[in-house]
């Protein structure tokens, strides 16, 4: 489920959290799915269990996961929503990126077209997300 890039500069702790968020965002991990235990993950990735524990604790703190005593950790119901909320921060990056493009005199229409491309690809996934979001409310 997770993979670690040991030789990159990003701390393992951050990698786990980021990957977890991405998996929730892309719908691979749905609410109610169980996360691997710290033990099995540590064995699979040859990673310090304490580090993994920290990452898991952070995920729980953010509300992405919840732990059921005796059973393990599961993706929380609001996970997708929270991830989406978190993702909104990325809009800033879009702006920053657009600034760069503008400075390079790329016309706005091309930028909009690129954005549109992303959303049309998502059309397959989007109705599902919409539908489950509607279910919850």
């Amino acid at each position: 489920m997770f993979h670690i890039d040991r030789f990159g500069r990003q701390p393992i702790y951050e990698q786990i959290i980021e990957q977890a968020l991405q998996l929730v965002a892309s719908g691979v991990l749905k609410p109610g799915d169980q996360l691997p235990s710290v033990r099995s993950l540590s064995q699979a990735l040859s990673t310090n269990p304490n580090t993994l524990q920290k990452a898991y604790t952070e995920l729980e703190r953010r509300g992405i996961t919840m732990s059921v005593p005796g059973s393990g950790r599961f993706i929380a119901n609001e996970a997708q929503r929270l991830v989406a909320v978190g993702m909104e921060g990325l809009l800033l990056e879009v702006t920053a990126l657009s600034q760069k493009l503008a400075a390079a005199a790329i016309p706005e229409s091309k930028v909009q077209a690129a954005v549109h491309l992303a959303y049309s690809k998502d059309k397959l996934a989007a109705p599902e997300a919409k539908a489950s979001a509607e279910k919850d409310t």
Partner: protein
Amino acid sequence: MITAKNLTKRFSDVAALHNLNCQIPNGCVYGLVGANGAGKSTFLRLATGVYKPDEGDITLDGTPVFENITLKKRFAFVSDEFWAMPQSSMERMASLYSAAYDAFDHKRFTSLAKEFGLDTGRAIATFSKGMRRQAATILALSTGADHYFFDETFDGLDPVMRNLVKQLLYAQVVDTGATVIISSHSLRELEDTCDQLALLYQGGIVMQSDVSDLKTSLFKLQIAFGHDFDKTVFDGLELLSYTRQGSVANAVVRGDKEKSRALMQQQNPILLEILPVTLEEVFLFEMEALGYAFDITQGGN
């Protein structure tokens, strides 16, 4: 928890460790970094009751370790140089260990040896250096201890073996809350393995921190502006270093990444990159900071 308080050890009037203080919490994987001759081996030997402190003490849950057999039964020490009795095999050494450790698990010993592909009946003198380290590790892991001490042992293992050992140790940490203490002169080694790191310098621990904290709270910031600027653009951020080349500035910052990015973004840079630092860089910066601190105190005297 292992606690060292004002721990001092001298050899021939030269202090290897001087007023060393540190705490090693239970269940962590603790890395001890230091240059050759900094005192790592000495510290480990004091912790496992091989040496007696000249001043101060080193205790487990408040009880000094030296000559305390009940405590030592919970400690397993793996030295960089594995010594075995003349013409002995692993099996023979296991018999020595089991005479000392009540909880020695012979079944586990045999199955571990099989996992590592070592013949327990063969003379250890015929083993390569790496195999000897593996043998030492296997013996330590079979003692039923809950504190493992590795003195530069990992440096000699090949990546496959290192992985295997790490997995075994991690399993123990998760299952039994074991504590693992590893010393090395290579930070790279310890980075991946440990969750606590301490720096041993001039006979004392100068820095001890959680690895994740270190790596997440420090980062490099690269920024460029269309106009002239100076260091003051970084006001509001905790700077550890600052260099500027032309219109590009590089700074090492301690703090929250996103908040810092947002802050800098407000100044409308033409370039803004946030890069992670390696642990080595972290230590170098910290060392510099402390180095200055040492100099100041000595100058002041």
